[in-house]
């Protein structure tokens, strides 16, 4: 099916998320929509999918104008979408999730579960997905959940399939498999819109590339365009794709973790017998597909999550910190960039200055006796805003009003401006624009060169390869191996899938 978007404009208040965007996707074409975080890709797709009403412009399918009142209409018209945040109900089975909205029924409106399962198995077999229709979605790994999303779209006869950042949760091998599926679908006539910010994938699979920046189409390109050309189109200036890094000068062990085991929120073992050391002056990257225990590992080191009784020992600078409170850990000289900026990193309703002192609200440079030293706080906050290049009218602006990248810089500024010996950075650049990514990466390397120990938890292989001095790959709560950054992507992919070398 041919998809055409004509002059789509969508405004949120004063912000123009999409500005007169035109896009044509021919039948059987894999069309990549390339853009930075916050460029307006997802907004555009939500307009296409009927979740948002466009302020101007129209959507055409096979040259016929469409008007969608909701996602139901879009689906009816043949548009299927695999969302970045999966639209699956965790407590339902695969079959129930796929059936939802177009349920096969028997008498009395009773669900025909057998028929629902058959639909899943049919599609699953056609594409070699290997998905169990009876499994509860919450028990499945994210890669499989994504396949369920694809099955969901296909079971609705989608002839235009939109994939929103589909590779963010996959290992390199799974990514290759997904690309193969995309090619297979395209050759059967399905039009595919592939939304991403990863240049390598675009070049590998797309037939045509449209680049958007700040809500506007800035150009189109062929997949044979060079990576740096695409990158500068996407960002709007020349970008350095590599991080400058001198060779490491390691010192003493700063953090030592021995046989750590931690439960997740559901009472399952998320971390299961993990041991490693991090020395001063090195960056240890903890790589792996999301949901293999990295989050819980970082939280356990910080004291946010308790380790299992009788298991594990966390030693920081030679003193035993197992079972310590968060405050004790922070005061022992640890900086922490949490994974979820909006819920754990900053308080949106606080000003930047307030956020800067939030983990040193007791005796610190921000206080005078039991009071806040307002003049000192203002001075420090202004300096930090300048030093860390936070783009804001003033340090008294609410943190919630900042863009993701600038919020993250506030977090980084807060953590690095304290005198720390160990930095735990969990997904420090997730959902952050390229300019801020470069900046944050540089700051992390500076800390390492100053002789600090850094633990970088990241699911982005590019980030891991750019920064790490050693890479620990986690799979199902265990460290499969600790390898050097010279290891090939392919080899790392295997480790991420749990195959030990």
């Amino acid at each position, binding site marked *: 099916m041919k998809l055409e978007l004509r002059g789509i404009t969508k405004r949120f208040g004063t912000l123009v998320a999409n500005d007169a965007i035109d896009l044509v996707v021919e039948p059987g074409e894999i069309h990549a929509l390339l853009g930075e975080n916050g460029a307006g890709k997802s907004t555009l797709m939500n307009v296409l999918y009927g979740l948002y009403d466009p302020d101007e412009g129209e959507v055409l399918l096979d040259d016929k104008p469409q008007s969608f009142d909701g996602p*139901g209409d879009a689906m009816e018209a043949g548009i299927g979408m695999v969302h970045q945040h*999966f639209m*699956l109900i965790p407590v339902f089975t695969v079959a129930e999730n796929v059936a*939802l909205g177009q349920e096969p029924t028997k008498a009395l*409106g*009773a669900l025909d579960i057998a028929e629902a399962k058959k639909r899943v198995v049919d599609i699953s077999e056609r594409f070699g997905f290997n998905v169990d229709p009876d499994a509860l979605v919450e028990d499945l790994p994210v890669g499989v959940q994504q396949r369920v999303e694809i099955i969901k779209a296909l079971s609705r006869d989608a002839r235009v399939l939109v994939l929103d950042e589909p590779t963010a949760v996959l290992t390199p091998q799974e990514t290759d498999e997904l690309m193969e599926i995309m090619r297979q679908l395209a050759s059967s006539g399905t039009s595919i819109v592939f939304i991403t910010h990863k240049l390598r994938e675009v070049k590998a699979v797309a037939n045509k590339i449209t680049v958007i920046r700040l809500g506007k189409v800035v150009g189109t390109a062929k997949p044979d365009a060079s990576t740096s050309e695409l990158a500068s189109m996407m960002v709007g200036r020349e970008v350095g794709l590599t991080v400058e890094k001198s060779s490491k000068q390691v010192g003493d062990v700063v953090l030592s973790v021995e046989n750590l085991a931690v439960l997740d929120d559901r*009472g399952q073992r998320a971390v299961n017998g993990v041991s490693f050391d991090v020395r001063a002056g090195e960056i240890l990257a903890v790589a792996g597909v999301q949901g293999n225990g990295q989050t819980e590992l970082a939280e356990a080191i910080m004291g946010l999550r308790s380790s299992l009784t009788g298991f594990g020992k966390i030693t920081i600078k030679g003193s035993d910190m197992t079972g310590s409170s968060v405050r004790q850990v922070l005061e022992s000289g640890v900086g922490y960039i949490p994974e979820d900026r909006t819920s754990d990193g900053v308080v949106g309703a606080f000003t930047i200055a307030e956020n800067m002192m939030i983990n040193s609200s007791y005796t610190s440079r921000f206080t005078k006796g039991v009071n806040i030293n307002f003049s000192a706080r203002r001075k420090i906050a202004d300096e930090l805003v300048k030093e860390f290049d936070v783009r804001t009218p003033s340090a008294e602006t609410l943190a919630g009003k900042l863009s993701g990248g600038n919020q993250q810089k506030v977090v980084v500024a807060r953590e690095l401006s304290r005198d720390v010996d160990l930095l735990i950075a969990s997904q420090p650049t997730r959902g952050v624009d390229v300019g801020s990514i470069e900046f944050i990466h540089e700051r992390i390397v500076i800390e390492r060169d100053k002789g600090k120990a850094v633990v970088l938890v990241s699911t982005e292989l590019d980030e891991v390869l750019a920064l790490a001095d050693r890479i620990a790959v986690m799979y199902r709560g265990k460290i499969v191996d600790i390898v050097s950054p010279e290891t090939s992507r392919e080899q790392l992919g295997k480790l991420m899938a749990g195959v030990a070398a």
Partner: protein
Amino acid sequence: MSQIQLAKEERIGFKSPITMASIGVFVIIFFGVLGREGETVFEISRRADLIQLPSISIGSSSLGWVSGILLLLIAGYSLSSSLKNRKTPLWVSVLYGAIGVIALLGWLAAGNQVPLTFIIGTSLVLAVPIVLGAMGGLMCERVGVTNIAIEAQLLAGAFMAAVVSSITDNFFLGLISAMIGGALVSLVLAVFAIKYLAQQIIVGVVLNVLVIGITSFLFQQWLTQDAENVNFPGTLDIIKIPFLSDIPVIGPVIFENRITVFVALIFVPTLYFILFKTKLGLRARAVGEHPLAADTVGINVGRTRFWWVTMGGMSAGLGGAALTIGNAGAFGREMAGGFGFIALAVVILGRWHPISAALAALLFGFSIILRVWANQVSPGIPTDFIIMVPYVVTVIAVVAFVGQSRPPKALAIPYTKG
């Protein structure tokens, strides 16, 4: 797979066996060793029943001994489960509870009779408003709307049923208007919660206060002045189902009741079927768990919530009718008397599941009749103690056996698009 060393946090623990053993010891000491003199007679059949079963007579303190030992044996089974790191199965806990109840009845009624049919039957009748209220609450919560206005819905239903039945002299119209009364309260909740995205708890509190106020005002100014014409509905006829009502115990308890009880008995499994086996239920649960996901497959979240909340109100309204024309025979000021809040607790205790919630409601019905009956057979025992027992049991049951429950994920979160 190799044996994994389990940490303390991963073990099932010994909460269940310890609780069970302590209660067992308590029963042996207080009901057995220090037990009361006299025989307890368990009457299985009523005098009017067609088939007469013999009563069972046993010494009160011997019953204490026997049941205490049985309880300890079950505690032992629970201990062996814990040692194997398995949870104590639910049926074992239920059996345990049943034996405990018999021990309690036997102790209370030393030298007296225990009319089993009467106790179970009355528990059921008293539980009906709680059951229907809980089903109403459950229907709202399953689609993600917190309904703490069950009390208001019960009261509105009770009021409407009494007044309309009195004026029209027609119970059918009374029942219909009770459902409308409950639904009207729900409508206010639905409009504020779904359309205006108001804080649902606050709307619920306001509705409770409002309906208590309105019904009390009307009761004072109107019903008491003209009681004969507007608050004298009488009660629904008791329907005896032929043959089935002659079965011992089950017959009089289940098949010889007012229409409100039958409706509740049919509605609970029906709601279970709708929620878990039909398209409607699948969609409703999807809306309560992840409304955005439901929206992306073309389910209208607002409309689904609206209908379920309204239907929930009808169920609770009918529960209100069970208070007046299904039991007391007239409306009284604030007559729901906290049943709505008990229903709210029952929803959680029953983990948002119709069958378990209905069983939990029965427990509360039983606690009410136990208080009344125990006062008659053993005037010596402080009433306050007896009132306390079912609640203590509930607390223990929740802590030791129910464990962590998982409410619908999107509960109380308004849904907005874009």
